[in-house]
């Protein structure tokens, strides 16, 4: 697609429910990142996918968080048993790579705002 697409734009859920957030990267971008941004704060790295390599999950805050990506296509971030502290904007970004390494800047989606009541 023309840009990084994320859905839903806004999600309100009750504490304890599971949520899925979706990211569709720019076509041809093999690298895909998920970040979390709490209100008025900076970006917290969550997870990184590069082609078919094993993802870098070092930023996931707990085992309630997981993400999947099939090949170089759509990625889904799943949060199980949501807590109020999970409320944030979840940003997805993609980037070109060459030989498995980043060659450019990040292109971001508009984010998914999650509110846990």
């Amino acid at each position, binding site marked *: 697609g023309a840009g990084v697409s994320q859905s839903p734009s806004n999600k309100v859920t009750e504490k304890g429910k599971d949520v899925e957030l979706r990211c569709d990267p720019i076509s041809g971008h093999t690298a895909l990142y998920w970040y979390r941004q709490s209100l008025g704060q900076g970006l917290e790295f969550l997870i990184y996918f590069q082609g078919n390599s094993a993802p870098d999950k070092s930023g996931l805050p707990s085992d309630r968080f997981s993400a999947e990506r099939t090949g170089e296509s759509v990625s889904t971030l799943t949060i199980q048993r949501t807590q109020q502290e999970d409320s944030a904007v979840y940003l997805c*970004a993609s980037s070109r790579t060459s030989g498995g390494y980043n060659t450019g800047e990040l292109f971001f989606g508009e984010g998914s705002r999650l509110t846990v009541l």
Partner: protein
Amino acid sequence: AQTVTQSQPEMSVQEAETVTLSCTYDTSESDYYLFWYKQPPSRQMILVIRQEAYKQQNATENRFSVNFQKAAKSFSLKISDSQLGDAAMYFCAYRLNYGQNFVFGPGTRLSVLP
């Protein structure tokens, strides 16, 4: 580990004036990229300007320019002729060349006063 610091949580500038946002970083590497991203209230982060560390010449993009001081590990953003649409959060970011991790600073909120 690399870190990026933005010491100004908030800044304001009068419309048509010039403002400089500060960024410092810590790295032992010599080959890397630096970026400034803008995040308006609409939330979507967009790239403002990038700088390759091996280039001595400061990058410019229209009204936006940087002052890159490699030895001092400083990468400030100058916005000339500020416009109301420049109001946003600005994030400084670092990436090692051929590295996967982008390290972001905490951001500076810029207000533009009419």
